[in-house]
């Protein structure tokens, strides 16, 4: 009896997955009754709420890719160097203090990051980049980089830490100095782990919502210029949700079609990252 009840608790997670997939498939199916695949994948304009309707998902995908690329461009070098410092140079006390402090970055509500990107980062960047619009992918992406930095730093540090000391000692014994050991032995051996960390961080960046809603503008724009205002997939879902959209309308179905695209992107990235991490656990570096 109790066991059955507890089993049900465990099954809630399976039911949640089924619910997500079921609802996304159902509404996306309805969406594609009205809109052809060619309109969805063969167009670069996204204007489903206008009278002249276009359903080119690439306008939202490009915005999502652009902000995520800026975020990774910020977080990967910083996070990786931070991980190297923590595992190779830092004292034990420094690690004990700094690791939780970095975790704070991941725990700050993203609406606060959005405010920071809009009122601090963008005006700050405008000092150096003339022509940067008030809403832009660059400021939002950099601040998003701050948010995902702890993921990269902490998971990369785990990967670097897992490199067997014997490998490092071997390098030192061959006369390599510390830098050569780090770049020729430690980093190549922990490559899978660092790659897995990066992929998980990309997945988080793609699904991130409030920063881009607030600071990147709400203009679906098939462009890879980070100075311009763009719209991401997540930001579109929020834009529609802020209005009152009745069930069953095409506008209502579009957010599920966009949600489905977003879900597939993050699912593939997460599965790939898990695959890499499983390989590491099995001992293939």
């Amino acid at each position, binding site marked *: 009896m109790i*066991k059955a009840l507890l089993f049900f608790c465990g099954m809630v997670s399976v039911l949640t997955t089924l619910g*997500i997939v079921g609802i996304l498939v159902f509404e996306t199916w309805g969406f594609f009754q009205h809109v052809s695949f060619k309109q969805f994948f063969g167009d670069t304009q996204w204007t489903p709420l206008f009278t002249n309707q276009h359903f080119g998902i690439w306008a939202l995908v490009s915005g999502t890719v652009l902000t995520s690329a800026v975020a990774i461009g910020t977080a990967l070098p910083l996070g990786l160097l931070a991980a190297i410092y923590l595992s190779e140079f830092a004292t034990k006390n420094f690690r004990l203090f700094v690791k939780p402090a970095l975790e704070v970055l991941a725990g700050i509500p993203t609406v606060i990051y959005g405010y920071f990107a809009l009122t601090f980062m963008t005006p700050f960047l405008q000092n150096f980049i003339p022509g940067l619009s008030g809403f832009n992918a660059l400021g939002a992406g950099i601040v998003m980089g701050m948010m995902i930095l702890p993921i990269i730093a902490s998971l990369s540090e785990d990967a670097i830490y897992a490199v067997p000391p014997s490998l490092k000692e071997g390098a030192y014994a061959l006369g390599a100095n510390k830098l050569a050991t780090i770049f020729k032995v430690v980093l190549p051996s922990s490559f899978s782990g660092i790659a897995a960390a990066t992929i998980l961080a990309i997945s988080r960046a793609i699904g991130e919502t409030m920063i881009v809603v607030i600071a990147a503008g709400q203009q679906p724009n098939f462009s890879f210029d980070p100075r311009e205002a763009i719209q991401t997939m997540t930001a579109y879902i929020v834009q529609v949700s802020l209005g009152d959209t009745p069930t069953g309308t095409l506008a209502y179905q579009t957010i599920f079609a966009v949600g489905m695209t977003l879900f597939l992107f993050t699912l593939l990235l997460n599965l790939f990252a898990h695959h890499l991490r499983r390989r590491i656990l099995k001992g293939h570096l």
Partner: protein
Amino acid sequence: MRHRFLKENTIENAFKAICFLSILLPLVLIVVLIGDAVIDGWSRLSLDFLTGFPSRKPELAGFLPALVGSFYLMLLTSAIAIPLGLGAAIYLEEYAKPGFLTSLIEINISNLAGVPSIIYGLLGLELFVRMSHMGRSLLAGACTLALLLLPMVIMVSRESLRVVPNSLREAGFALGADQWQTIWKIILPMSIPGALTGIILSVARAIGETAPLITIGALTYVAFLPDSIHSAFTAMPIQIFNWISRPQTAFQTNAAAGIVVLLFLMLFFNALAIWLRARLQRKVYW
């Protein structure tokens, strides 16, 4: 020879300095972020702000419905997510036998943890708001957030169950207790302190969640306090977002003040979690 050694040493030190700066920069940015919000919002931080209702006049607008909404949301979400999460964790750690179903549940939980929060919003919109006819109520919001939290609650609870040594389980059985009695009387009391810390941290994270609540249609302008679980509501991050998205700069000041309150509460919950862990952790030697 000596010359080369010195040069290598300089390069190494330079690299070390760059690595150190990479850690320093994000930490400095945290301080700038908090400082920025405090400076922007300082002029609005007062008791009137905490006890006032939203208004079209920025200097009169208050944060009360958002504070109360977040508080109720947190209670309801915990009431749903904690029993479900603990139950699932107990099942997986104590009862489940390795097999297809168990690995299905485990893979599911780790995948769910990676699903973007806005997707949970879409699930909540269709499942709770529309199909279950809950409307845009506190209950619908809490159910959505509970599903979002569940993977995290399950993971931290499992970890705290795992550290209870097997000898204690065997001692329970040897005294004639059945499996549930052993779990209820021995294992749970031992693992609660560890689980509690993680659970408080996940619940604290839920108060900061914005996107799923906007997606299910939480209101952005609420001039009343929710009176039941079926009532419409707003929450702190949503009110902040509403103020940010208004063009007048005076509302930005309100947003900054709201951010300071939200950050303070997050800090409080983090401190509470650490304090509770230190206090509840009995000195047990096994």
